[in-house]
């Protein structure tokens, strides 16, 4: 299975939220109680039952309105923080580039929730499992498009092999930049190159996205420094204890001494 990519071209997205419905329909996720958040957005954040939603940002500057819409879902990072943080090795990256949670192994510890720079995975308290967009891996592996891409009418979501779709994204970007100079790609370099690559109409921070996000330093320190060092420390102590005991045996310190 070649590496896949999904281009989210916000220059075409009209915020119709069909992707949200298609995702809920395919994954059989029940609806949740919502209320108008801002503009036409009614879903504030991810939840164990909401794996993708559309954010609306109204930026009005010198008489022109930029009505920015962005479909939020798991980026399926090239270098996923959730995978690194997961306590139970339940998260895995498929060849096609999707980061998927194995609910048989997941214990709902929430490490992924806290360490994802985009705050995507969420733990369902009743099921004690962490949930997020699966990239419709069951569809993709059977040569179907993810449900959200399939239903997108405006052509804002495109699915294809990473190699050629990235090229298309760049051409499209140069086209869009003619009218929107700050338009830029997001996801090509971030987090080791994500599977969902965005063509944004403005700088990432306007969308509330972290600027060149990386795996949190705390996570790297935790997994690559504290854990090994800690292991050595405990191992060392244990070894010291063993050696100490032998040393004393050799020295005969244990022979009963009438003191």
């Amino acid at each position: 299975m070649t590496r896949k990519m999904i281009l989210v071209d916000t220059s075409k997205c009209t915020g119709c939220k069909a992707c949200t419905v298609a995702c809920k329909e395919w994954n059989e996720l029940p609806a949740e109680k919502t209320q108008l958040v801002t503009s036409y957005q009614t879903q504030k954040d991810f939840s164990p039952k909401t794996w993708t939603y559309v954010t609306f940002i109204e930026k009005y500057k010198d008489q022109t309105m930029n009505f920015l819409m962005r479909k939020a879902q798991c980026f399926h990072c090239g270098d996923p923080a959730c995978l690194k943080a997961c306590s139970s090795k339940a998260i895995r990256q498929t060849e096609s580039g999707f980061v998927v949670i194995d609910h048989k192994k997941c214990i709902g510890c929430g490490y992924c929730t806290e360490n994802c720079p985009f705050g995507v995975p969420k733990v369902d308290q009743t099921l004690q499992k962490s949930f997020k967009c699966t990239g419709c891996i069951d569809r993709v592996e059977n040569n179907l498009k993810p449900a959200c891409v399939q239903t997108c009418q405006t052509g804002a979501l495109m699915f294809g092999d990473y190699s050629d779709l990235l090229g298309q994204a760049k051409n499209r970007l140069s086209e869009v930049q003619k009218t929107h100079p700050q338009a830029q790609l997001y996801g090509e370099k971030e987090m080791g190159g994500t599977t969902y690559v965005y063509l944004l109409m403005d700088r990432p921070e306007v969308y509330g996205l972290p600027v060149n996000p990386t795996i949190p330093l705390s996570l790297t320190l935790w997994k690559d420094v504290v854990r090994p060092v800690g292991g050595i420390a405990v191992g060392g102590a244990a070894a010291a204890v063993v050696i100490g005991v032998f040393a004393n045996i050799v020295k005969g310190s244990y022979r009963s001494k009438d003191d």
Partner: protein
Amino acid sequence: MSPSFGRGAMTNSWSDLQNAEVFLIAGSNCAENHPIAMKWINRAKEKGAKMIVVDPRFTRTASKADLFAQIRPGTDIAYLGAIINYIIENQLYDRNYVLNYTNALLKVAKDYKFEDGVFSGYDAKSRKYAVTSWGYQLGSDNKPLKADSLEDPDSVFSKLKTHYSRYTFETAEKITGIPAVKIKQIADTFCEGKPGTILYALGMTQHTTGTQGIRAYAVIQLLLGNIGKAGGGINALRGEPNVQGSTDMANLFNNLPGYLPHPINTDQSIRDYQVRNGSVQEKPLVALLKAWFGEHARKDNDFAFSYLPKINPSVNASMVKLFEMMDKGQFKLAFNFGSNSLVSIPNRQLVRSALTKLDMLVVSDLFEVETAQFWREPGVKPADINTEVIMFPAAFVYEKDGTLTNSSRWIQWKNAALKPLGEAKPDLEILDSLFKRIRKLYDGSTDAKDAPILNARWDYGEEASALKVLQELNGYDETNGKLTQSLADYLKASVGTVSTGCWIYAGVTGNGNLAARRKNSDSTGLGLYKDWSFAWPGNIRILYNRASCDEKGQPVDDKRKLIWWDAANNVWSGNDGPDVVDKTKGPDTPEGKQSFRMNPEGAGRLFAANYMSGLPVVPSADGLPAIGVRPAGLCVDGPMPEFYEPTESPTDNLLHPKVSKSPVALILSSSPEIQKMGKANDFPHVLTTYGVVEHFCAGGITRNIPWLNELMPEPFAELSKNLAQKIGIKEGDMVEVSSARGKVTVRALVTDRLQTYKVNGKETETIGMPWSWGFASLSPGPSTNELTIAALDPGAGTPEYKVCLVNVRRA
């Protein structure tokens, strides 16, 4: 559309949008209410097309526009008139298109005039126009005289020129609130892009000058030569899955299926009918009567014409007026199959009180919509309402066979995918069993009035089969009982030998159920898809495509070839079915020149004249009134669009202050306590109502779908930041929006997508509210139609949902 081109339907199709170079999307929020349009608009934009959006709000559609202008609701004709004026003054029109394919050169009758806001022939008492003065100067052959140049003062073109000379960009700015420089930019952008298409929907039609607004579009498109071309035309984005079909089938008090005018009381014979409607209607009427009464409709009994009820022409029973009549107690029994009037009719109090006057209401629907349970709406005492209500569970779209006709006039067949849920039944079966029971009740009756029921041809099988009904629509050759093969066969057959329930559908099941065709290849690359389902009439995908050719019958735009005259084989051929009178008549013949064959003049009508073609020169021997061939579609409120203020307007008409509002607008004044009018100083702001992408129309279905309620849980009022500041509220607060007729409390959406604008120098605010909510369903909410005004377009009867005056304060 029919007064301009002869047919009341969208001229092109969804997939044709990809061929356009420029879009004027005004009166439509297609990204929300016709999302599929965006797929094709985006494809056109990728090829460099420009997108202009004019809307009272910066909608999700506007977010993708190259050029956006915020307009005061109800003032479209002001800026469209300015564009027409701009096109004429700067000769931006397509000269030989205007000369050959429009009635520009025809001479207008001498006694036609337009003075300070009123056309000639106006009767103030009856608030109606007599249309006789809007005719042409006729020659001895009863044909309109032709001027020799556009400059001739009597020509339609000059009338157009003088009429719109008053519409300058500056005047338009004062009326609409759009800066003059931007209107000019819109005009330039739209005129440069060839072909350009206009997309409109209820945003344009739901005004007391709705029809005239569309007429303005027709004038612009005819001047620019965009009609009949791939990527051109006027795309009326119809609202509902089968709205094209339901108007084809004439669920309208003044029509019979196939857009046949309904017989009126003075039509005591088919001949009388033809005197009024032209001989061209004889064949379809007789075919209809054959389809309904079979062998009981014979030549000797005037094809059972007497069986048809005749309407009283002075009674306007269009949808909203119907409720006015119901409120006066005329109706004892009402059927309500699939609509939700208690939420969708403006000024809901009228509907609520009207329904209580019924003895019995019969509803067929999927869910218990508001109309079905009007007797237990909050605040109503059921004990006082004596209407018996019967509710039938209806089957859903994929639980029944049948066809739906979409905006592109594609009649698409679908098989039932599931069994109906529980004891639900398709409406087809309900109607079939109802009629059979009624007929049984009348068994043996000899009363003449029962003859239509007993002699009706109504046999669609034990369990009503949708295919049999579709075949009846396709029509039969009555001489041998075989299905009519094609529209051409129908047109060739002599009167009385062919039957069809709806003549424009002839050929749909000619050889096999063409509506079920699924070949989706399109070698032309123009998105015609000629082998997918069946487009009426006769599978023509782009109407009036004769106009895409020059006088020699060759396509003007070689990148978008539709049809052409094949001199070798002496026949019109091409990528699309030719919309010509006769395929064998070349461009040099009179028939071959007609680009708008459904119009009596055979040409596009810039000036919607009152004219009947083919009136005989010599009066008929038997002294009976003469019968012409084809009457022209008329607008009851004027041959040319004129700007009038909406019924409830914050200001007076700048062009003709004495006649500020449309003099012929239909205002329901019958029940004063229900139909109150708001004054600008009590209700300073303008309300416009619309749908949202997450819900559909009255929300009867979508508000019972949890996923959609999650996406849009409640109605809201959008208002500008200035207004929000003035009344001291912020985003998310609840506000009370009130009009002279009612008030609702909803959440406020404070946004920059609505800006304060100046009208005649005065600061004005627009408030926007979606209307898809009612007291029933999983996600009830206040109905916006508590506020709207029941003022109707005089021609179509469309209520003025888009404009009324309101006030707003913190709740």
